[in-house]
């Protein structure tokens, strides 16, 4: 028995040596990919993975002669799990780059853990602005978005162009909707809106929203109800909003993810016409988008969403930067610099460039409405485009950074409670008809 144990441990040790050798092989590089493949945001996690895999397959999993090995980890949308998985990827898998990250809180906690690891962190869909603002460090490159970025454009437009004054906002209680709601309020108040009454509910545990919906005051001249949430919660909310007859009383608008594919496909047709902003629109007709959309449909059998495009785009950024470094990933600072210099003018969702200081994206914002295609399926149809929107929107970055982080209670619900200098902007948005 003892000799058997001895034999076993020797062979185990031997195999470990072999394993570590394989990991350290020169012709291979490792990318860690953390996301929520299960849980209330699993559809976003899945879309993200599909987008990234498409980019990798197009490159044949090879860049500059090196094989790209991706290690996927599911954190079930649990921040502690996410950090544990990050630790595993860093210590055990010895990854060269960390990417994935689908939700706001997830990004912030993994970002915090990765702070001193000297490994580039490329968040794909996680959009809490602080990751590329107040909690930024040079290893972070987010070529995608922040929550406030599209919502400021949207809120301003609703107030300025549509003349809306009062909004009733119901949102999921965590960092990404805080940031989306924050952007919305700033834009809405700057455009002349006076009030955004805000209510928060816990994520993923509230399945019956009918009581929240029944509490919306129908006699206080709200111009619209903003559902500031996404994923399964959004499907539930929208369904019940229609069923309880509220849609006939107050129009419904969404944050960027509320009506995203594929969730919008499970919503009742009544929501046709509902507005939301994002950095993609399903009916973009540019050659880059069409090429991406066709390839994606061919590979996965369904339409892409913003989450899949962002992942595709981020993975391409990673591959292009490694290409530019001729496969050398040992100098992480140089790798990050290469990432910030990657040309993303051919990105499917429109031209993207990176802010050199905070490594965040400058890109198009589209205002969209839910529409029905000839097969009867719901999608997001572009209405207006605003070009070259950065994470600070029209504001002076210094002034913006002096404001507190967006939270459940900031920005305030009333225009009058917002610092007056935030009501002024350096430059104004240009709303161009979609497709021009």
């Amino acid at each position, binding site marked *: 028995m003892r000799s058997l144990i001895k034999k076993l441990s020797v062979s185990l040790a031997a195999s470990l040596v072999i394993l570590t050798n394989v990991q350290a092989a020169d012709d291979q590089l490792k990318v860690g990919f953390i996301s929520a493949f299960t849980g*209330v945001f*699993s559809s976003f996690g899945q879309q993200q993975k599909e987008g990234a895999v498409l980019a990798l397959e197009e490159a044949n999993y090879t860049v500059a002669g090196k094989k790209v090995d991706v290690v996927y980890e599911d954190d079930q949308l649990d921040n502690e799990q996410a950090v544990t998985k990050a630790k595993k990827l860093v210590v055990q898998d010895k990854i060269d780059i960390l990417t994935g990250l689908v939700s706001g809180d997830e990004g912030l906690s993994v970002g915090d853990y990765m702070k001193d690891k000297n490994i580039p962190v490329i968040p794909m869909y996680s959009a809490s602005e602080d990751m590329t603002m107040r909690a930024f460090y040079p290893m972070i490159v987010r070529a995608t978005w922040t929550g406030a970025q599209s919502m400021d454009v949207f809120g301003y437009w609703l107030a300025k162009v549509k003349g809306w004054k009062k909004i009733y906002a119901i949102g999921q209680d965590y960092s990404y909707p805080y940031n989306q709601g924050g952007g919305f309020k700033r834009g809405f108040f700057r455009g002349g809106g006076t009030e955004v009454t805000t209510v928060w509910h816990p994520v993923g545990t*509230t*399945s019956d929203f009918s*009581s*929240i919906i029944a*509490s919306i005051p129908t006699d206080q001249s709200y111009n619209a109800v903003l559902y500031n949430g996404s994923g399964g919660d959004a499907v539930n909310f929208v369904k019940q909003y229609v069923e309880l*007859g509220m849609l006939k009383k107050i129009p419904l608008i969404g944050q960027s993810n509320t009506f995203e594919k594929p969730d919008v496909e*499970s919503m009742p047709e009544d929501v046709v016409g509902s507005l939301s902003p994002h950095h993609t629109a399903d009916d973009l007709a540019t050659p880059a988008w069409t090429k991406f959309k066709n390839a994606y449909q061919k590979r996965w059998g369904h339409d892409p969403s913003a989450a899949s495009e962002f992942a595709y785009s981020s993975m391409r950024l990673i591959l292009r930067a490694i290409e530019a470094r001729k496969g050398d990933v040992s100098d992480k600072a140089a790798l990050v610099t290469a990432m910030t210099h990657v040309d993303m003018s051919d990105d499917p969702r429109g031209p993207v460039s990176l802010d050199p200081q905070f490594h965040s994206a400058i890109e198009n914002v589209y205002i969209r409405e839910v529409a029905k295609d000839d097969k009867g399926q719901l999608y997001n149809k572009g209405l207006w485009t605003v070009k070259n929107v950065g994470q600070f929107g029209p504001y002076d970055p210094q002034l913006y950074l002096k404001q507190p982080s967006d939270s459940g209670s900031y920005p305030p619900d009333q225009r009058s409670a917002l610092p007056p200098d935030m009501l002024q902007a350096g430059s104004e948005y240009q709303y161009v008809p979609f497709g021009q």
Partner: protein
Amino acid sequence: MYTKFLILILNGLTQAAIFFVLGSGLTLAFGLMRVMNLSHGAFYLLGGYIGYSVVHATHNWPLALVAGSLSIALLGFLFERTMLVRVRGGDLPETLLTIALSMIIADVSLAIWGGHPLTLNLPAYLNPPIRILGITYPGFRFILMGLSVLIAFSLWLILYRTKLGASVRAGVDDRETASALGVNVDKIYSFVFALSALLVGVAGVLGGSYLQLSPGSDTTILTYSLVIIILGGMGSLLGTVVSSLILGQLLSFGLAYAPQYSYFLIFVPMGVVLAIRPQGLFGRQV
């Protein structure tokens, strides 16, 4: 103000209806077998998913209800006969086995139905907008309440008006004596476990029709189910009725007046009951 209250109360009753169907099966199985079936939430999810596929293929909702619930009943029966029976009496192995099953079901469901939230489409005749006392309310929710009452009544009939029910109750009170008096406890166990699975299968199809199904619903539902039966008292049907009504209204009014704390709120009565009456409102001293 009055219409809002009315809607909130109706919402609470709808929640209570689902809660009761969820809790009744679990509490029966626990009362008799002392098995805490932690795959209850996964059964719910799977039942809903099967119902979804049936509705998708046949556009026949009643058929989906039957298919979803019967297939889960069958699954429960087979699971009890082939696996649970081997570890009977061992608290830890039983718990681990049911957890293992729940994980397997969750992963298999993810592979088959994917991660997107799904909803069973209700035919219009099952969900007419109903105008009552000055408000409009989805008709399906009334059907839900009706079904729940019907299930409660049937369970009461089975338990208190049939020989089978008498055996079940005897088994709950004193297994050894019942067994010595000629009650085939093994058969009763299988029956009750399959019944419990059937009920949660029904809950899955009902819940999947008015809410939505997605990976992760299983754990949320399991949590709700546990809170319901701990509050009501494990093994007590009446307790489940009362705790479902309490929790339903609490959740409904909580969502209206303190949505941020609504999830936390449902644990409050459980905490209070555990502190002063650990066996639950209608539970027996164990």
